[in-house]
């Protein structure tokens, strides 16, 4: 009961602290809000770059063309052989008749040429479309597939894929570094603003100590206050993120420049970003406060 009362008092005091030091609290909240908006933009950019690169990587497929005269039995053996390989994700069989049908559906010219073909005189080859779990190993997997008996040629966009992958890796790493750096800068800025707020209240801390407040008695209301500033400060960035991203997504019709670059669907992405913003605000607010108040505690 006593602990509950002390806890209740701490919560009440933290609200009072924010209210009674309104101008400094507003300075802290504005600082948190502005920096978190920048963090939010960086997170949205980074999330979309990651999503886009993953989309491209997922679209890369190894096409294994089988020998013209391959038997039904061999087809299933080849499947088993491919399936044994490491880093193989999905294997899809596409027979030559299916390929011809697709081509005829796609173009009238093809239809004119191909419509007379029977299964036996179809010059196309049966194929296996293989996706890998890790694009870095696409070249090794292709080479191994090529060695399987009954496979004639393997294609996956050699050269271009490797180049794309390395560019994407650089972009991903750079955006992650930017986000981390921004979070650190935010933490520093918020912690410093809160420090100024608390520095102005060292007299209050001194009085608390004189009337017999323990270090925990002093620290806890300030930690709650930091937490509260963090929560209030993250409200505007969260609103900006939610409404801003949904509006942007709608305006760009979910794509950037062309249909190749698809933006992440707003839900649940905006909630994830918002959750992270709230968490950063709370943690940084709390630790900023704790760091500042420590200075005035004689431990």
């Amino acid at each position, binding site marked *: 009961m006593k602990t509950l009362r002390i806890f209740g*008092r701490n919560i009440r005091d933290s609200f009072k602290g924010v209210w009674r030091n309104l101008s400094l609290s507003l300075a802290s909240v504005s600082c948190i809000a502005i920096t978190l908006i920048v963090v939010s933009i960086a997170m949205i950019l980074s999330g979309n770059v990651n999503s886009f690169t993953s989309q491209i990587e997922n679209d890369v497929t190894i096409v294994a063309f089988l020998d013209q005269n391959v038997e039904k039995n061999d087809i299933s053996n080849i499947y088993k052989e491919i399936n044994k390989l490491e880093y193989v994700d999905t294997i899809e069989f596409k027979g030559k008749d299916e390929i011809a049908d697709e081509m005829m559906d796609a173009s009238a010219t093809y239809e004119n040429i191909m419509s007379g073909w029977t299964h036996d005189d179809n010059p196309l080859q049966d194929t296996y479309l293989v996706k890998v779990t890790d694009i870095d190993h696409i070249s090794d997997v292709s080479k191994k597939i090529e060695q399987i008996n009954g496979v004639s040629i393997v294609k996956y966009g050699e050269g271009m894929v490797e180049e794309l992958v390395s560019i994407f890796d650089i972009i991903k790493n750079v955006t992650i570094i930017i986000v981390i750096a921004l979070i650190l800068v935010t933490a520093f800025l918020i912690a410093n603003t809160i420090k100024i707020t608390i520095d102005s209240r060292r007299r209050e801390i001194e009085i*608390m*100590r004189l009337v017999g407040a323990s270090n925990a008695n002093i620290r806890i209301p300030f930690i709650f206050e930091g937490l509260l500033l963090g929560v209030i400060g993250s409200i505007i960035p969260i609103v900006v993120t939610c409404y801003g991203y949904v509006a942007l997504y709608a305006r760009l019709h979910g794509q950037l420049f062309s249909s190749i670059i698809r933006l992440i669907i707003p839900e649940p992405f905006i909630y994830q970003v918002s959750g992270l913003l709230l968490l950063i605000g709370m943690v940084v607010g709390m630790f900023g406060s704790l760091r500042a108040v420590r200075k005035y505690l004689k431990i």
Partner: protein
Amino acid sequence: MDLIRMRDVTHTYKTGVTALRDLDLTIEKGEFVFIIGSTGCGKSTLGKLLYRELKPTKGTILIGGENVGKIPNRKVYKIRRKIGVVFQDYKLLEKSTVYENVAFALEIFGLPKEEIHEKVLKALDLVGLKGKVKMYPKELSGGEQQRVAIARAIVNSPKLLICDEPTGNLDPETSMEVMKVIQSIHELGTTVIMVTHDIDIVDKLKKRTILLNAGRVLKDYAEGEYTK
């Protein structure tokens, strides 16, 4: 019965200045003691040692049998809860009301609201400020602010009240009003130690008076002995 027993107490500041030298002092429960002396004689240092704002460099200070010099910093609050302290500059929370300033000292203990309310009003009644609970310190006179500080110091019913120049900022008339309050608290059984340079007050009250000089006890006047 001894409440305070100081033996061989020396305090040297980090600057190298020695404020108290081999001081021996015993104060009985229920006494009212003035500590006087010229500026720099060590009287404020003595007060600070008693409420454990400072630690003695040498010697022992026992308060109620507890060696306060040995208490680690993080446990100082335990001794502070047993001692009421009043300062020259009142040390009130400017943004809190009279009531909140006094209640503050009880809230940290987690007492129930009703009990806090009762004790705060009782303390404010004792200092004659029951009618000003909702006012803020800046709306009060110096004497009233000091009385709020006294109410805060005694709200927890401490056995010992240390007053460090409580009338330092007040005119003679207001000083006497504050002294009346301190005396009435003493009459209720609280031991009072008052550090002061206000010789008129000391002369009028005729309490036990300890005259310090260069960090040592120059003279220990028994009750009624001291005259200007």
